């Protein structure tokens, strides 16, 4: 079995007296792609903010490589639906931001970041401003920024949900290919069942309220998955099973 990188233990969080999530236990192993699937408003982002250390949980722990990082920011980075590229920074500086934060020498940071532009499909955009990029390009830049923060564990909070269907499909294909190359372990939030099945080794199903993990499904076909997988009987079976679990 591969090494556990990220783990949550019994996490619970209340907002304004209302229990949002409880008893959340999830694990993310080395190089694994895991999805957290649930309807909007169930508490997925709340869990992410806890893991990222931006909000403190009421109870429970977050472990990274076995170390308690509960409530500590700066350990795990994440990417959202909003790319959060800063309009005043050129794409290169936006992407190198995590390195700037680490107080790396500016030109060193830029050289380091530039190495990956080709691989992340944004070659030639380094001197542009984010507003000059398409939605898909911006998400790729945001993903590279996340990668430069930490090359082996990342959180993705519905990163592609704002894209149109065609761009989204292209991004899925690109994302899977990229993940093969860079060996990252990723926890991927989504409310899109197809996306979860396509992009994951394992899926946690969150239902509620309050948000609890009610099922865990392993998606068997090995990655990278061919396009036929999307229209296979196998795929539909997974989908049927998940729809039942989500009571849809």
């Amino acid at each position, binding site marked *: 079995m591969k090494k556990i990188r990220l783990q949550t233990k019994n996490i619970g969080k209340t907002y304004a007296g209302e229990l949002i999530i409880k008893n959340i236990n999830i694990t993310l192993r080395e190089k694994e792609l895991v999805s957290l699937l649930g309807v909007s408003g169930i508490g997925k982002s709340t869990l992410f903010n806890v893991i*990222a250390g*931006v909000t403190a949980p009421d109870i429970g722990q977050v472990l990274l490589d076995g170390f308690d990082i509960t409530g500590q920011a700066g350990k*795990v980075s*994440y990417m*959202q639906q*909003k790319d*959060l590229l*800063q309009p*005043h920074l050129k794409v290169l500086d936006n992407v190198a931001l995590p390195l700037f*934060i680490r107080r790396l020498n500016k030109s060193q940071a830029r050289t380091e970041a530039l190495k990956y532009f080709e691989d992340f499909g944004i070659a030639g955009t380094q001197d542009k401003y984010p507003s000059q990029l398409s939605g898909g390009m911006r998400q790729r830049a945001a993903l590279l920024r996340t990668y430069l923060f930490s090359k082996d564990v990342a959180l993705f909070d519905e990163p592609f949900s704002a894209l149109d269907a065609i761009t989204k499909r292209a991004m899925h294909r690109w994302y899977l290919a990229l993940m093969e190359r860079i060996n990252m372990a990723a926890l991927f939030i989504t409310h899109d069942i197809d996306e979860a099945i396509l992009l994951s080794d394992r899926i946690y199903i969150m239902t509620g309220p309050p948000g609890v993990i009610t099922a865990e499904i392993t998606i068997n076909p090995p990655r990278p998955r061919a396009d036929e997988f999307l229209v296979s009987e196998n795929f539909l079976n997974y989908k049927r099973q998940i729809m039942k679990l989500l009571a849809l």
Partner: protein
Amino acid sequence: MRKSPSINHKFYPLFVLIGLLLIWHLITTIGLVPGFMLPSPLDVLRAFANSFPELMGHAGVSLTEAFTGLALSIMLAFVIALIMDCFEGIYKAFHPLIVISQTIPTVAIAPLLVLWLGYNMTPKITLVVLTCFFPMTIALLGGFKTSDADAVNLMRAMGARKWQIYRYIKLPNALPGFFSGLRISVSYAIVGAVIAEWLGGNSGLGVYMTRVRKSYAFDKMFAVIFLIALLSLLLIKVVDLLERKSMPWIYRLREEEKLE
């Protein structure tokens, strides 16, 4: 061909200005108003040329006061805005008071400042600071407070320290507002210095104004007024230029779009 109307557009105010000057000239030449009360534009120009060295000397003093006051108010604005953004309690306690304090006309406290601080530059600079820090403080604070909370959270998740959040998110977000504040402040700065000079001192455009007023030299009076207006205009232009230079992500993009 289709461009020409918009080019003409730019000249409309110039035409109106020339028209107004002509009317003014006409009024004085046909003697509608006695010449000693309303000098003709040519008289004013002559007065300006004759007293040019003297005017420049006084302008230098006023500008020194204005710039010193402005520089101090920029620093003050940054410090106050930073403190109020960092400490919610201080914000809640002081923000309403600062807003209310702005209803006190600075002109009214100018005499007090002169009495307290004497006839040198200090009361003038103080008055400039009192009039100028507010627009910039409010603009900066607004920029800090409206920064994208998600972007700030992401910075924190990436381990950013507080100053880095200001450096990369909050300050850039506050920059456009800061420049609108600065534009208001530079025109206040010169007027503030001149008003303070009315009340006492040895040099400066305000002192010069009081002198020529006492000798009923209307032409010189007009020359100073125009000079003050011109200086304010010039400073606003400088601010515009600085703004363009410091926010290329807004202005360079606009220019590129125009070219396409």
